[in-house]
Protein backbone atom coordinates (compact mmCIF):
# COMPACT_ATOMS: atom_id res chain seq x y z
CA UNK A 1 0.00 0.00 0.00
CA UNK A 2 2.86 2.34 0.61
CA UNK A 3 4.47 1.48 -2.67
CA UNK A 4 2.39 3.92 -4.69
CA UNK A 5 2.98 6.94 -2.47
CA UNK A 6 6.63 6.03 -2.00
CA UNK A 7 7.25 5.80 -5.71
CA UNK A 8 5.44 9.06 -6.35
CA UNK A 9 7.47 10.73 -3.62
CA UNK A 10 10.71 9.57 -5.18
CA UNK A 11 9.47 10.72 -8.54
CA UNK A 12 8.70 14.19 -7.24
CA UNK A 13 12.05 14.41 -5.46
CA UNK A 14 13.77 13.40 -8.64
CA UNK A 15 11.88 15.84 -10.81
CA UNK A 16 12.08 18.76 -8.37
CA UNK A 17 15.47 20.15 -9.44
CA UNK A 18 14.13 20.55 -12.96
CA UNK A 19 11.40 22.94 -11.84
CA UNK A 20 13.49 26.03 -11.05
CA UNK A 21 15.34 25.39 -14.27
CA UNK A 22 12.08 25.26 -16.17
CA UNK A 23 10.94 28.51 -14.60
CA UNK A 24 14.20 30.26 -15.39
CA UNK A 25 14.20 28.91 -18.93
CA UNK A 26 10.64 30.14 -19.51
CA UNK A 27 11.52 33.55 -18.17
CA UNK A 28 14.56 33.75 -20.40
CA UNK A 29 12.59 32.59 -23.41
CA UNK A 30 9.91 35.23 -22.84
CA UNK A 31 12.48 37.97 -22.49
CA UNK A 32 14.18 37.07 -25.73
CA UNK A 33 17.15 35.12 -24.39
CA UNK A 34 18.05 31.44 -24.58
CA UNK A 35 18.78 30.97 -20.89
CA UNK A 36 20.42 28.16 -18.98
CA UNK A 37 19.43 24.54 -19.81
CA UNK A 38 16.47 23.16 -17.89
CA UNK A 39 18.56 20.44 -16.24
CA UNK A 40 21.25 22.86 -15.11
CA UNK A 41 20.41 22.48 -11.44
CA UNK A 42 21.24 18.74 -11.61
CA UNK A 43 24.67 19.57 -12.89
CA UNK A 44 25.11 22.27 -10.24
CA UNK A 45 24.10 19.83 -7.50
CA UNK A 46 26.47 17.16 -8.79
CA UNK A 47 29.28 19.68 -8.93
CA UNK A 48 28.60 20.95 -5.45
CA UNK A 49 28.43 17.49 -3.90
CA UNK A 50 31.93 16.80 -5.15
CA UNK A 51 33.37 19.91 -3.57
CA UNK A 52 34.71 20.46 -0.10
CA UNK A 53 32.91 22.39 2.57
CA UNK A 54 34.46 25.59 3.89
CA UNK A 55 33.31 26.84 7.25
CA UNK A 56 33.75 30.36 8.50
CA UNK A 57 35.56 30.75 11.79
CA UNK A 58 32.67 32.68 13.29
CA UNK A 59 30.17 29.87 12.85
CA UNK A 60 28.96 27.31 15.36
CA UNK A 61 27.46 23.84 14.99
CA UNK A 62 24.14 25.54 14.22
CA UNK A 63 25.58 26.58 10.89
CA UNK A 64 26.59 22.99 10.15
CA UNK A 65 23.24 21.47 11.06
CA UNK A 66 21.03 23.98 9.28
CA UNK A 67 21.25 22.66 5.69
CA UNK A 68 20.47 19.14 6.89
CA UNK A 69 17.45 20.41 8.78
CA UNK A 70 16.33 22.28 5.67
CA UNK A 71 16.36 19.27 3.40
CA UNK A 72 15.04 16.93 6.04
CA UNK A 73 12.02 19.04 6.90
CA UNK A 74 11.11 19.52 3.29
CA UNK A 75 11.27 15.80 2.56
CA UNK A 76 9.25 14.93 5.66
CA UNK A 77 6.68 17.56 4.68
CA UNK A 78 6.51 15.90 1.29
CA UNK A 79 5.57 12.62 2.92
CA UNK A 80 2.49 14.28 4.37
CA UNK A 81 1.09 15.18 0.97
CA UNK A 82 -0.98 12.65 -0.97
CA UNK A 83 1.08 13.19 -4.06
CA UNK A 84 -0.64 10.53 -6.13
CA UNK A 85 -4.05 11.64 -5.02
CA UNK A 86 -4.84 8.50 -3.06
CA UNK A 87 -2.79 8.26 0.07
CA UNK A 88 0.16 9.87 1.76
CA UNK A 89 3.06 8.05 3.40
CA UNK A 90 2.28 9.73 6.72
CA UNK A 91 -1.17 10.90 7.56
CA UNK A 92 -3.01 11.83 10.75
CA UNK A 93 -5.71 14.28 11.75
CA UNK A 94 -4.37 17.81 11.84
CA UNK A 95 -1.27 17.04 9.82
CA UNK A 96 -1.77 20.24 7.90
CA UNK A 97 -0.47 22.06 10.95
CA UNK A 98 2.52 19.72 10.97
CA UNK A 99 3.06 20.48 7.29
CA UNK A 100 3.17 24.21 7.92
CA UNK A 101 5.28 23.70 11.00
CA UNK A 102 7.85 21.62 9.16
CA UNK A 103 8.23 24.23 6.45
CA UNK A 104 8.53 26.83 9.15
CA UNK A 105 11.17 24.79 10.92
CA UNK A 106 13.23 24.59 7.78
CA UNK A 107 13.03 28.30 7.30
CA UNK A 108 13.87 28.87 10.93
CA UNK A 109 17.01 26.76 10.65
CA UNK A 110 18.10 28.64 7.57
CA UNK A 111 17.55 32.00 9.25
CA UNK A 112 19.49 30.89 12.32
CA UNK A 113 22.37 29.79 10.17
CA UNK A 114 22.36 33.13 8.49
CA UNK A 115 22.45 34.96 11.80
CA UNK A 116 25.13 32.57 12.99
CA UNK A 117 27.65 33.84 10.50
CA UNK A 118 27.68 37.24 12.11
CA UNK A 119 27.68 38.97 8.76
CA UNK A 120 25.45 41.96 8.27
CA UNK A 121 24.28 40.84 4.85
CA UNK A 122 22.93 37.59 6.18
CA UNK A 123 21.39 39.37 9.11
CA UNK A 124 19.54 41.71 6.80
CA UNK A 125 18.35 38.80 4.73
CA UNK A 126 17.28 36.94 7.83
CA UNK A 127 15.10 39.78 9.05
CA UNK A 128 13.50 40.14 5.61
CA UNK A 129 12.87 36.43 5.35
CA UNK A 130 11.16 36.38 8.71
CA UNK A 131 8.99 39.37 7.74
CA UNK A 132 7.89 37.60 4.59
CA UNK A 133 7.09 34.43 6.50
CA UNK A 134 5.11 36.39 9.10
CA UNK A 135 2.69 37.30 6.32
CA UNK A 136 2.97 34.09 4.38
CA UNK A 137 2.06 31.68 7.13
CA UNK A 138 -1.42 33.13 7.85
CA UNK A 139 -2.08 33.09 4.13
CA UNK A 140 -1.10 29.43 3.96
CA UNK A 141 -3.35 28.62 6.90
CA UNK A 142 -6.24 30.47 5.25
CA UNK A 143 -5.77 28.48 2.05
CA UNK A 144 -5.74 25.26 4.02
CA UNK A 145 -8.86 26.48 5.86
CA UNK A 146 -10.62 26.72 2.51
CA UNK A 147 -9.75 23.08 1.90
CA UNK A 148 -10.85 22.05 5.38
CA UNK A 149 -14.20 23.82 5.00
CA UNK A 150 -14.75 22.38 1.55
CA UNK A 151 -14.09 18.75 2.42
CA UNK A 152 -14.66 18.62 6.16
CA UNK A 153 -11.43 16.64 6.60
CA UNK A 154 -8.60 17.67 8.86
CA UNK A 155 -5.79 15.72 7.25
CA UNK A 156 -3.99 16.62 4.05
CA UNK A 157 -4.33 13.14 2.68
CA UNK A 158 -8.05 13.33 3.27
CA UNK A 159 -8.39 16.80 1.80
CA UNK A 160 -6.47 16.54 -1.41
CA UNK A 161 -7.69 13.20 -2.59
CA UNK A 162 -11.10 11.83 -3.43
CA UNK A 163 -13.12 14.10 -1.09
CA UNK A 164 -11.97 17.19 -2.93
CA UNK A 165 -13.00 15.78 -6.26
CA UNK A 166 -16.42 15.10 -4.81
CA UNK A 167 -17.02 18.67 -3.62
CA UNK A 168 -15.46 20.35 -6.62
CA UNK A 169 -18.64 21.37 -8.47
CA UNK A 170 -20.14 23.13 -5.48
CA UNK A 171 -17.05 24.76 -4.10
CA UNK A 172 -15.34 25.58 -7.37
CA UNK A 173 -14.98 29.37 -6.92
CA UNK A 174 -13.45 29.02 -3.46
CA UNK A 175 -11.04 26.35 -4.66
CA UNK A 176 -9.91 28.44 -7.60
CA UNK A 177 -9.31 31.35 -5.25
CA UNK A 178 -7.40 29.08 -2.89
CA UNK A 179 -5.28 27.79 -5.76
CA UNK A 180 -4.51 31.34 -6.86
CA UNK A 181 -3.51 32.25 -3.32
CA UNK A 182 -1.35 29.12 -3.09
CA UNK A 183 0.37 30.08 -6.30
CA UNK A 184 1.16 33.52 -4.89
CA UNK A 185 2.45 31.81 -1.76
CA UNK A 186 4.65 29.52 -3.84
CA UNK A 187 6.25 32.61 -5.30
CA UNK A 188 6.86 33.97 -1.82
CA UNK A 189 8.10 30.78 -0.16
CA UNK A 190 10.53 29.82 -2.91
CA UNK A 191 11.82 33.35 -3.33
CA UNK A 192 10.74 34.08 -6.86
CA UNK A 193 9.67 37.37 -8.41
CA UNK A 194 7.75 39.43 -7.26
CA UNK A 195 8.96 38.72 -3.75
CA UNK A 196 12.63 38.07 -4.46
CA UNK A 197 14.54 37.95 -7.69
CA UNK A 198 16.68 34.80 -7.99
CA UNK A 199 18.70 36.28 -10.81
CA UNK A 200 19.94 39.33 -9.01
CA UNK A 201 23.53 39.64 -7.92
CA UNK A 202 23.08 42.69 -5.68
CA UNK A 203 23.07 41.50 -2.09
CA UNK A 204 21.09 44.44 -0.84
CA UNK A 205 18.14 43.46 -2.97
CA UNK A 206 18.08 39.78 -2.00
CA UNK A 207 16.07 38.00 0.60
CA UNK A 208 16.77 34.30 0.34
CA UNK A 209 19.96 34.27 -1.67
CA UNK A 210 21.80 36.47 0.74
CA UNK A 211 21.15 34.20 3.73
CA UNK A 212 22.96 31.34 2.07
CA UNK A 213 25.97 33.33 0.96
CA UNK A 214 28.32 31.58 3.36
CA UNK A 215 27.25 28.02 2.62
CA UNK A 216 29.42 25.95 0.31
CA UNK A 217 29.79 22.51 -1.18
CA UNK A 218 27.28 19.80 -0.25
CA UNK A 219 25.60 22.06 2.27
CA UNK A 220 24.78 24.60 -0.41
CA UNK A 221 23.60 21.73 -2.58
CA UNK A 222 21.23 20.61 0.16
CA UNK A 223 19.81 24.10 0.49
CA UNK A 224 19.31 24.48 -3.26
CA UNK A 225 17.69 21.06 -3.43
CA UNK A 226 15.46 21.98 -0.51
CA UNK A 227 14.30 25.11 -2.30
CA UNK A 228 13.54 23.15 -5.45
CA UNK A 229 11.60 20.50 -3.53
CA UNK A 230 9.63 23.27 -1.79
CA UNK A 231 8.64 24.61 -5.19
CA UNK A 232 7.58 21.09 -6.07
CA UNK A 233 5.52 20.81 -2.89
CA UNK A 234 3.62 24.01 -3.46
CA UNK A 235 3.16 23.09 -7.07
CA UNK A 236 1.76 19.75 -5.95
CA UNK A 237 -0.63 21.62 -3.64
CA UNK A 238 -1.84 23.80 -6.49
CA UNK A 239 -2.22 20.81 -8.79
CA UNK A 240 -3.96 18.82 -6.07
CA UNK A 241 -6.52 21.56 -5.55
CA UNK A 242 -7.22 22.14 -9.20
CA UNK A 243 -6.98 18.65 -10.67
CA UNK A 244 -8.97 15.68 -9.29
CA UNK A 245 -5.99 13.34 -8.98
CA UNK A 246 -8.04 11.02 -6.81
CA UNK A 247 -10.30 10.15 -9.72
CA UNK A 248 -7.46 9.09 -11.99
CA UNK A 249 -6.13 5.50 -12.20
CA UNK A 250 -3.09 4.78 -10.10
CA UNK A 251 -0.60 4.77 -12.96
CA UNK A 252 -1.87 8.00 -14.53
CA UNK A 253 -1.91 10.16 -11.43
CA UNK A 254 1.87 10.57 -11.02
CA UNK A 255 2.24 11.41 -14.69
CA UNK A 256 -0.46 14.08 -14.46
CA UNK A 257 1.15 15.36 -11.28
CA UNK A 258 4.54 15.77 -12.93
CA UNK A 259 2.93 17.44 -15.91
CA UNK A 260 1.07 19.76 -13.56
CA UNK A 261 4.30 20.60 -11.77
CA UNK A 262 5.77 21.49 -15.10
CA UNK A 263 2.83 23.76 -15.87
CA UNK A 264 3.20 25.48 -12.48
CA UNK A 265 6.90 25.98 -13.12
CA UNK A 266 6.17 27.51 -16.52
CA UNK A 267 3.54 29.69 -14.83
CA UNK A 268 6.14 30.90 -12.36
CA UNK A 269 8.42 31.71 -15.26
CA UNK A 270 5.68 33.67 -16.99
CA UNK A 271 4.93 35.66 -13.86
CA UNK A 272 8.63 36.32 -13.39
CA UNK A 273 8.94 37.73 -16.88
CA UNK A 274 5.83 39.91 -16.54
CA UNK A 275 6.44 41.55 -13.21
CA UNK A 276 9.28 43.33 -11.56
CA UNK A 277 10.32 42.54 -8.05
CA UNK A 278 8.22 44.50 -5.59
CA UNK A 279 9.72 47.12 -3.33
CA UNK A 280 10.41 45.70 0.08
CA UNK A 281 7.53 47.52 1.76
CA UNK A 282 5.09 46.27 -0.87
CA UNK A 283 5.84 42.61 -0.26
CA UNK A 284 3.50 42.41 2.76
CA UNK A 285 0.84 44.00 0.58
CA UNK A 286 1.28 41.21 -1.96
CA UNK A 287 0.87 38.58 0.73
CA UNK A 288 -2.11 40.37 2.29
CA UNK A 289 -3.69 40.28 -1.16
CA UNK A 290 -3.16 36.51 -1.20
CA UNK A 291 -4.75 36.30 2.24
CA UNK A 292 -7.67 38.43 1.07
CA UNK A 293 -8.30 36.05 -1.82
CA UNK A 294 -8.23 33.11 0.57
CA UNK A 295 -10.55 34.92 3.00
CA UNK A 296 -12.97 35.56 0.17
CA UNK A 297 -12.86 31.86 -0.62
CA UNK A 298 -13.59 31.05 3.02
CA UNK A 299 -16.53 33.48 3.07
CA UNK A 300 -18.00 31.91 -0.06
CA UNK A 301 -17.94 28.53 1.66
CA UNK A 302 -19.39 29.78 4.91
CA UNK A 303 -22.56 31.29 3.50
Amino acid at each position, binding site marked *: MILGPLLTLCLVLAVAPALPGLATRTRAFLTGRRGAPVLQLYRDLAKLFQKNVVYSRTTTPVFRIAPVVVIATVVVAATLLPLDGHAALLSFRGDLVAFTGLLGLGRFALVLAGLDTGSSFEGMGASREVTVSAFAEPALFLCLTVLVLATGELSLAGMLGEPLAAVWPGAAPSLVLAAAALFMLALAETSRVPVDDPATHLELTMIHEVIVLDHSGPELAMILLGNAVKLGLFGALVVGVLVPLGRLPAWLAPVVLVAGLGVVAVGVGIVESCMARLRMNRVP*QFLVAASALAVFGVILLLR
Partner: protein
Amino acid sequence: MSGLHELLLLCVVLTNFWVLGTTRLSSTIRATAIQGALLAALPIALHPSWSIHTIGLAAGTFLVKTVILPSFLAWAIREAAVRREIEPLIGFSTSLALGAVAVALSFGIAQRIPLPESDSSLLIPVALSTVMVGLLVLTTRNKALSQVVGYLVLENGIFVFGLSQVERVPFLVELGVLLDIFVGIFIMGIVVFHINRAFDSLDSTRLTELKD
Protein backbone atom coordinates in the same frame (compact mmCIF):
# COMPACT_ATOMS: atom_id res chain seq x y z
CA MET B 1 -26.59 30.97 -17.75
CA SER B 2 -27.25 30.51 -14.08
CA GLY B 3 -23.61 30.05 -13.33
CA LEU B 4 -22.55 32.99 -15.43
CA HIS B 5 -23.94 35.70 -13.21
CA GLU B 6 -22.34 34.10 -10.16
CA LEU B 7 -19.01 34.17 -11.96
CA LEU B 8 -19.53 37.79 -12.97
CA LEU B 9 -20.37 38.79 -9.42
CA LEU B 10 -17.28 37.03 -8.08
CA CYS B 11 -15.14 38.85 -10.59
CA VAL B 12 -16.68 42.12 -9.42
CA VAL B 13 -15.40 41.39 -5.93
CA LEU B 14 -11.98 40.58 -7.35
CA THR B 15 -11.90 43.93 -9.16
CA ASN B 16 -12.74 45.58 -5.85
CA PHE B 17 -9.67 43.95 -4.33
CA TRP B 18 -7.69 45.12 -7.32
CA VAL B 19 -8.76 48.72 -6.75
CA LEU B 20 -7.90 48.45 -3.07
CA GLY B 21 -4.50 46.92 -3.53
CA THR B 22 -2.91 48.69 -6.43
CA THR B 23 -0.80 51.80 -6.12
CA ARG B 24 -0.87 52.94 -9.70
CA LEU B 25 -3.78 55.23 -10.57
CA SER B 26 -4.04 53.99 -14.15
CA SER B 27 -4.40 50.49 -12.72
CA THR B 28 -7.38 51.54 -10.59
CA ILE B 29 -9.06 53.05 -13.63
CA ARG B 30 -8.46 49.89 -15.60
CA ALA B 31 -10.06 47.93 -12.75
CA THR B 32 -13.17 50.15 -12.83
CA ALA B 33 -13.37 49.75 -16.59
CA ILE B 34 -13.37 45.99 -16.24
CA GLN B 35 -15.89 46.29 -13.44
CA GLY B 36 -18.08 48.34 -15.75
CA ALA B 37 -17.88 45.65 -18.41
CA LEU B 38 -18.86 42.98 -15.87
CA LEU B 39 -21.77 45.15 -14.74
CA ALA B 40 -22.89 45.61 -18.32
CA ALA B 41 -23.02 41.85 -18.80
CA LEU B 42 -24.92 41.27 -15.55
CA PRO B 43 -28.46 42.31 -16.64
CA ILE B 44 -28.28 39.96 -19.58
CA ALA B 45 -26.93 37.14 -17.44
CA LEU B 46 -29.60 37.64 -14.78
CA HIS B 47 -32.61 37.93 -17.07
CA PRO B 48 -31.85 36.26 -20.40
CA SER B 49 -35.04 37.56 -21.92
CA TRP B 50 -33.38 39.92 -24.40
CA SER B 51 -35.95 42.66 -23.89
CA ILE B 52 -35.31 46.23 -24.91
CA HIS B 53 -34.91 47.06 -21.27
CA THR B 54 -32.04 44.66 -20.58
CA ILE B 55 -30.24 45.26 -23.84
CA GLY B 56 -30.56 49.00 -23.55
CA LEU B 57 -29.37 48.92 -19.96
CA ALA B 58 -26.42 46.70 -20.84
CA ALA B 59 -25.43 48.83 -23.79
CA GLY B 60 -25.78 52.09 -21.87
CA THR B 61 -23.82 50.75 -18.92
CA PHE B 62 -21.06 49.47 -21.15
CA LEU B 63 -20.84 52.74 -23.01
CA VAL B 64 -20.71 54.89 -19.92
CA LYS B 65 -18.80 52.76 -17.45
CA THR B 66 -16.33 50.96 -19.67
CA VAL B 67 -15.70 53.35 -22.51
CA ILE B 68 -16.48 56.95 -21.69
CA LEU B 69 -15.70 57.34 -18.01
CA PRO B 70 -12.41 55.39 -17.89
CA SER B 71 -11.05 57.17 -20.93
CA PHE B 72 -12.06 60.49 -19.43
CA LEU B 73 -10.37 59.65 -16.15
CA ALA B 74 -7.29 58.47 -18.04
CA TRP B 75 -7.20 61.84 -19.78
CA ALA B 76 -7.38 63.49 -16.36
CA ILE B 77 -4.41 61.40 -15.20
CA ARG B 78 -2.40 62.39 -18.22
CA GLU B 79 -3.20 66.04 -17.71
CA ALA B 80 -2.21 65.91 -14.08
CA ALA B 81 0.89 63.82 -14.85
CA VAL B 82 0.35 61.84 -11.68
CA ARG B 83 1.17 58.16 -11.54
CA ARG B 84 1.03 56.70 -8.13
CA GLU B 85 -1.05 57.03 -5.06
CA ILE B 86 0.97 57.96 -2.03
CA GLU B 87 0.53 55.86 1.07
CA PRO B 88 -3.08 56.48 2.03
CA LEU B 89 -4.48 57.20 5.44
CA ILE B 90 -4.68 53.57 6.47
CA GLY B 91 -2.10 51.90 4.26
CA PHE B 92 -2.60 49.55 1.32
CA SER B 93 -2.25 46.33 3.32
CA THR B 94 -4.81 47.53 5.85
CA SER B 95 -7.10 48.58 3.00
CA LEU B 96 -6.94 45.08 1.57
CA ALA B 97 -7.60 43.54 4.96
CA LEU B 98 -10.53 45.91 5.55
CA GLY B 99 -11.86 45.05 2.11
CA ALA B 100 -11.86 41.38 3.06
CA VAL B 101 -13.64 42.28 6.31
CA ALA B 102 -16.18 44.31 4.32
CA VAL B 103 -16.90 41.30 2.11
CA ALA B 104 -17.40 39.13 5.19
CA LEU B 105 -19.67 41.75 6.81
CA SER B 106 -21.81 42.15 3.72
CA PHE B 107 -22.33 38.40 3.44
CA GLY B 108 -23.38 38.40 7.07
CA ILE B 109 -25.70 41.38 6.68
CA ALA B 110 -27.23 40.01 3.50
CA GLN B 111 -28.42 36.95 5.34
CA ARG B 112 -30.37 39.16 7.71
CA ILE B 113 -32.03 41.25 5.01
CA PRO B 114 -34.99 39.19 3.88
CA LEU B 115 -34.91 40.13 0.25
CA PRO B 116 -37.00 37.96 -2.03
CA GLU B 117 -33.95 36.93 -3.99
CA SER B 118 -34.69 34.03 -6.22
CA ASP B 119 -32.12 34.76 -8.91
CA SER B 120 -28.95 34.84 -6.99
CA SER B 121 -27.96 34.85 -3.37
CA LEU B 122 -24.70 36.55 -4.31
CA LEU B 123 -26.23 39.76 -5.65
CA ILE B 124 -26.95 41.56 -2.40
CA PRO B 125 -23.67 40.69 -0.63
CA VAL B 126 -21.62 41.70 -3.66
CA ALA B 127 -23.57 44.96 -3.95
CA LEU B 128 -23.09 45.81 -0.29
CA SER B 129 -19.41 44.90 -0.30
CA THR B 130 -18.80 47.02 -3.40
CA VAL B 131 -20.55 49.96 -1.73
CA MET B 132 -18.38 49.53 1.35
CA VAL B 133 -15.19 49.23 -0.69
CA GLY B 134 -16.16 52.38 -2.61
CA LEU B 135 -16.70 54.28 0.62
CA LEU B 136 -13.38 52.97 1.93
CA VAL B 137 -11.47 54.19 -1.10
CA LEU B 138 -13.34 57.51 -1.09
CA THR B 139 -12.55 58.31 2.51
CA THR B 140 -8.98 57.06 2.88
CA ARG B 141 -7.21 58.00 -0.32
CA ASN B 142 -5.22 61.19 -0.70
CA LYS B 143 -5.28 61.88 -4.39
CA ALA B 144 -8.41 63.54 -5.67
CA LEU B 145 -8.60 61.14 -8.61
CA SER B 146 -8.58 58.14 -6.29
CA GLN B 147 -11.55 59.66 -4.50
CA VAL B 148 -13.38 59.93 -7.81
CA VAL B 149 -12.57 56.26 -8.48
CA GLY B 150 -13.97 55.44 -5.04
CA TYR B 151 -17.19 57.27 -5.91
CA LEU B 152 -17.39 55.34 -9.15
CA VAL B 153 -17.02 52.03 -7.31
CA LEU B 154 -19.71 53.15 -4.81
CA GLU B 155 -22.10 53.86 -7.65
CA ASN B 156 -21.28 50.51 -9.23
CA GLY B 157 -22.24 48.81 -6.00
CA ILE B 158 -25.58 50.61 -5.92
CA PHE B 159 -26.08 49.69 -9.56
CA VAL B 160 -25.59 46.00 -8.73
CA PHE B 161 -28.16 46.39 -5.98
CA GLY B 162 -30.53 48.04 -8.40
CA LEU B 163 -30.23 45.05 -10.71
CA SER B 164 -32.14 43.03 -8.17
CA GLN B 165 -35.06 45.43 -8.72
CA VAL B 166 -34.72 45.77 -12.46
CA GLU B 167 -38.35 44.91 -13.12
CA ARG B 168 -39.50 47.51 -10.64
CA VAL B 169 -37.41 50.43 -11.81
CA PRO B 170 -38.31 51.50 -15.33
CA PHE B 171 -35.82 51.92 -18.08
CA LEU B 172 -36.17 55.67 -18.32
CA VAL B 173 -35.16 56.06 -14.72
CA GLU B 174 -32.16 53.80 -15.14
CA LEU B 175 -31.10 55.95 -18.06
CA GLY B 176 -31.54 59.02 -15.92
CA VAL B 177 -29.40 57.49 -13.20
CA LEU B 178 -26.71 56.58 -15.68
CA LEU B 179 -26.73 60.04 -17.17
CA ASP B 180 -26.50 61.66 -13.78
CA ILE B 181 -23.55 59.53 -12.82
CA PHE B 182 -21.84 60.33 -16.07
CA VAL B 183 -22.32 64.05 -15.69
CA GLY B 184 -21.32 63.85 -12.04
CA ILE B 185 -18.01 62.19 -12.78
CA PHE B 186 -17.49 64.52 -15.69
CA ILE B 187 -17.83 67.54 -13.45
CA MET B 188 -15.59 65.92 -10.86
CA GLY B 189 -12.98 65.36 -13.51
CA ILE B 190 -13.11 69.00 -14.51
CA VAL B 191 -12.71 70.03 -10.90
CA VAL B 192 -9.76 67.66 -10.55
CA PHE B 193 -8.21 69.32 -13.57
CA HIS B 194 -8.65 72.70 -11.92
CA ILE B 195 -7.27 71.40 -8.64
CA ASN B 196 -4.19 70.24 -10.43
CA ARG B 197 -3.80 73.63 -12.08
CA ALA B 198 -4.31 75.57 -8.90
CA PHE B 199 -2.37 73.47 -6.42
CA ASP B 200 0.05 71.79 -8.84
CA SER B 201 -0.79 68.44 -7.33
CA LEU B 202 -3.75 66.19 -6.81
CA ASP B 203 -3.11 65.79 -3.13
CA SER B 204 -6.44 66.52 -1.50
CA THR B 205 -4.80 66.82 1.90
CA ARG B 206 -3.73 70.24 0.69
CA LEU B 207 -7.35 71.36 0.48
CA THR B 208 -7.50 72.54 4.07
CA GLU B 209 -7.82 76.29 3.80
CA LEU B 210 -11.49 76.42 4.71
CA LYS B 211 -12.15 75.63 8.31
CA ASP B 212 -13.87 77.05 11.36
